[in-house]
């Protein structure tokens, strides 16, 4: 892939990366989101990376309070939100200071000049104004007094100056919309719908938006106008989707496909809460959402609902999974369907609630007492969260087991265009409840055995209310078949074996090898690193190297061909947003010399970083 620099007077580029940055109260997430939607409707391929502080309102003007939103738009298919931004919109000095290091050399900085005054400069730790002097000589700097121009634009509307000031993000959006030839209608319509009934707010936001656009047109920005043409993507209908929304919709779809009511037991936690919010709005799909008193009750209620014959789901992040561990162990013992979603974040403990990390893989696989295996899946892109929510539900229902689905803060909040599936093409999930006796006892009486297994080694799902099938289940070890409490040592060994075997036997699709399968090096990933790895592999293959990419969705059980695939390469590189968890699993399972590549900075890998690492691994030659 070629890097495109933004030379003056260049009117058409193949891609551009823009980062909006400002104070948490400046509305940067909203601005980024609107720019993204307009770009999506224009037909660009895109990927986004929102970042915001854990505090709702960190002290205004400080580095800690900076909120940013990066969007990568292009005329071809792209895989990540991009490496270094070409354009930084800095709404205050703190935004400039905290983001400047990431901006591409020669890139453009659009600064809200009004905020570069003594007090804000001091808060950001600047001894002098960086807009004056040579500090930013490596960049093209566009200073725009956005706050005062916004106030001016709103002056005749009857809006108080303080309120008018709050519309300055729409000024920035209008300016960027002009610079990148974005359509204006979607944003104007959105403003009218979003603030319906608040006429002054609508007027102020529209005035600021138009003023920003007009400023671009009339001021000295003529040489800054750029267009990124629509991308040629596979034909079909697209929508721009975030991981959390896709995951929630996947759960709705799983309910639709199985005919079961979805019962979500959840407790608010960043960055998973949006799944609870989304499903709470979808009651017409026969979805019950229950905001529990704590994480333990959230999973407990979901398990209780599953016992009653519903699709029990709980959604959380790492700290919540830690609390739920004992109940998940109970679900392993009860052999009931249950979906546990872990939207991973930086840890340990409270860690980095709003930043991404993927360090819960080993907890997902092993984080319960006793031998308590369960299937583990990981989504790779925001849209893939839809598919994996269905897949997790399917495995849970068909095999009567708790299933852990891993996503992360990056997937949860970032977005990408999603080629919408045809609902009729989604495969139904068959559900079979036990309805009659299944065994004859010593006296010739028909009886029901709750732990009599089918060919998948799954036990019957016999829900309360079914005549004749009354039975007791629990966390105590039970005799295989009859389900009676049993402390027999041979039976326990047998049951431990059965619980392992029945998970190991779950059929999962083979892994695919992408990139160049004939080289010596394979990059193996899981989860949200997919875009960065695929992008990096694409770039180094484009440079003439032979590098392959294998990406795991199923972490337990692992695909049957995985060992054979790995043994076809001399070098195995495993980039992970942790200190090396999958790499241990691969070394353990396949005795291969897999090597870790770690990133634990609370941010996803960029393709550029991985490109350098892969090139280094290949011997440093840059053909």
């Amino acid at each position: 892939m070629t890097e495109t620099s933004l030379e003056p007077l260049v009117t058409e580029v193949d891609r551009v990366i823009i980062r909006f940055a400002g104070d948490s109260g400046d509305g940067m997430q909203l601005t980024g989101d609107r720019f993204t939607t307009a770009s999506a409707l224009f037909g660009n391929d895109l990927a986004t990376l929102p970042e915001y502080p854990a505090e709702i309102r960190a002290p205004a003007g400080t580095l800690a309070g900076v909120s940013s939103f990066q969007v990568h738009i292009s005329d071809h298919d792209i895989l990540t939100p991009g490496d270094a931004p070409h354009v930084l919109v800095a709404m205050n000095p703190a935004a400039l200071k905290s983001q400047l290091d990431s901006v591409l050399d020669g890139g453009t900085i659009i600064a809200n000049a009004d905020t570069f005054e003594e007090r804000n400069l001091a808060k950001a730790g600047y001894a002098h104004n960086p807009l004056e002097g040579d500090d930013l000589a490596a960049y093209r700097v566009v200073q725009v007094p956005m706050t005062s121009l916004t106030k001016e634009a709103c002056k005749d509307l009857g809006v108080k100056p303080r309120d008018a000031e709050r519309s300055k993000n729409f000024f920035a959006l209008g300016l960027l919309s002009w610079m990148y030839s974005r359509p204006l209608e979607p944003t104007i319509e959105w403003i009218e719908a979003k603030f319906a009934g608040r006429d002054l707010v609508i007027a102020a936001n529209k005035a600021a938006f138009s003023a920003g656009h007009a400023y671009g047109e009339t001021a000295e920005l003529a040489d800054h106008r750029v267009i990124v043409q629509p991308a040629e993507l596979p034909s079909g209908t697209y929508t721009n989707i975030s991981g959390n929304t896709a995951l929630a919709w996947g759960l709705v779809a799983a309910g639709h496909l199985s005919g079961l009511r979805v019962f979500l037991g959840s407790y608010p936690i960043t960055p998973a809460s949006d799944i609870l919010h989304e499903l709470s709005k979808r009651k017409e799909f026969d979805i019950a959402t229950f905001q529990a008193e704590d994480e333990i009750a959230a999973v407990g209620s979901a398990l209780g609902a599953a016992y009653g014959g519903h699709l029990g789901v709980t959604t959380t992040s790492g700290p919540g999974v830690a609390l739920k561990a004992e109940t998940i162990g109970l679900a392993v013992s009860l052999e009931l369907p249950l979906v546990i979603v872990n939207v991973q974040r930086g840890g340990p403990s409270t860690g980095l609630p709003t930043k991404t990390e993927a360090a819960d893989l080993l907890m997902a696989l092993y984080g319960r007492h006793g031998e308590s295996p369960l299937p583990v899946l990981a989504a790779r892109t925001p849209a893939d969260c839809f598919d994996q929510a269905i897949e997790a539900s399917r495995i849970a229902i068909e095999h009567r087991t708790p299933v852990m689905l891993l996503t992360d803060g990056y997937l949860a909040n970032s977005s990408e265009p999603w080629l919408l599936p045809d609902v009729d093409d989604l495969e139904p999930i068959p559900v079979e409840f036990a309805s009659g006796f299944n065994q004859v006892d010593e006296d010739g009486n028909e009886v029901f055995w709750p732990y009599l297994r089918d060919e998948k080694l799954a036990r019957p799902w016999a829900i309360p209310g079914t005549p004749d099938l009354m039975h007791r289940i629990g966390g105590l070890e039970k005799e295989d078949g009859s389900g009676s409490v049993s402390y027999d040592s041979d039976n326990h060994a047998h049951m431990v074996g059965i619980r392992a075997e029945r998970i190991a036997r779950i059929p999962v699709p083979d892994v695919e090898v992408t990139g160049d399968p004939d080289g010596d090096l394979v990059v193996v990933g899981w989860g949200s690193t997919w875009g960065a790895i695929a992008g990096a592999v694409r770039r180094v293959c484009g440079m003439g190297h032979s590098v392959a990419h294998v990406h795991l969705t199923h972490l337990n059980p692992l695909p049957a061909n995985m060992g054979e695939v790995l043994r076809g390469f001399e070098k195995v590189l495993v980039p992970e947003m942790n200190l090396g968890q999958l790499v241990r699993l691969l070394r353990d399972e396949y005795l291969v010399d897999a090597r870790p590549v770690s990133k634990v900075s609370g941010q996803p890998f960029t393709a550029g970083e991985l490109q350098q690492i892969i090139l280094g691994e290949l011997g440093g030659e840059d053909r």
Partner: protein
Amino acid sequence: MTDTLLTDGASDEVPPTTRADWQSDQEVRWCPGCGDYSILTALQLLMPELGARREKTVFVSGIGCAARFPYYMNTYGMHSIHGRAPAIATGLALARPDLDVWVVGGDGDMLSIGGNHLIHALRRNIDINILLFNNQIYGLTKGQFSPTSEKGKITKSSPVGSCATPFNPVSVALGAEASFVARTHDMDRHHMQEMFRRSYEHPGTSMVEVYQNCNVFNDGAFETITKKAVRDDMLIPLRHGEPIRFGSEGQFGVARHDGGVELVEVADVGVEGLLVHDETRPDPSTAFALSRLAESPDRPTPIGVFRAVDRGEYAGAMNAQVDEARAARGKGDLHALLHSLPTWTV
């Protein structure tokens, strides 16, 4: 799908059952002499009278001696994990309002490790019947002080006496906005059955505290008030609409005093001076005052229904929201949902 399976072949008329129908084939394994036996018998004898269906009945428990209860009932049952029974029962009762869900647990299970779930179940008013077997000790772990053990209690884990003030389970429940709270004891089958019946009939969460003797680790904890010879003078029966009066001769009673209640002699205040029990009072403060009459269960102690108010059950409200959404927006259309954000076509 659930509904179809369950209505098939189920007639409206409940077939008559006997105690034996409610007994499972499992051998009961409590210590000989345990108070749990009399509670189990009381309930197994009562179930046929309630007209309940075995297949529609579920017992959910946590961990502890009391938590073995589900194994002995020939119904659906789940012996879950320590403290979590109210949470699991909540999910089950919300998912399946057609079921009768009972929760059985001890003082440690319900008030210590599971205290949070108990109070939230009570405030939400989920339709579950909670039987709290209070023996003021940890039995299954062989004798440590519990959240209801008296201050100064000498146990294996408090060799020089516990430092903690105990919970009064009825006070806790009332403080947690419970809509139904009652107390009974394991020496009086008839009274237990009366309380269990009221619990069963109550819409919403009902909690019945059962004073239960652990004859191995805390024998005789309630003897001062429940032994037949002293019962009349030490137990204060609460009967809705009647003056609160007790004693072998009916010589004692309860009267209002200084914003609360106090024990009085009827001779001093006259019958008309006694407090008339009203379990339906919306304000729980009188019920709370009654729960505080005895500082510990070795003084005259009220038994019976402290509070029984109808304030709307949770599952009904939750399911009504689903019905309203469907009435307003129609049954969910997955295709329309996927196209609900701005879309574009390539």
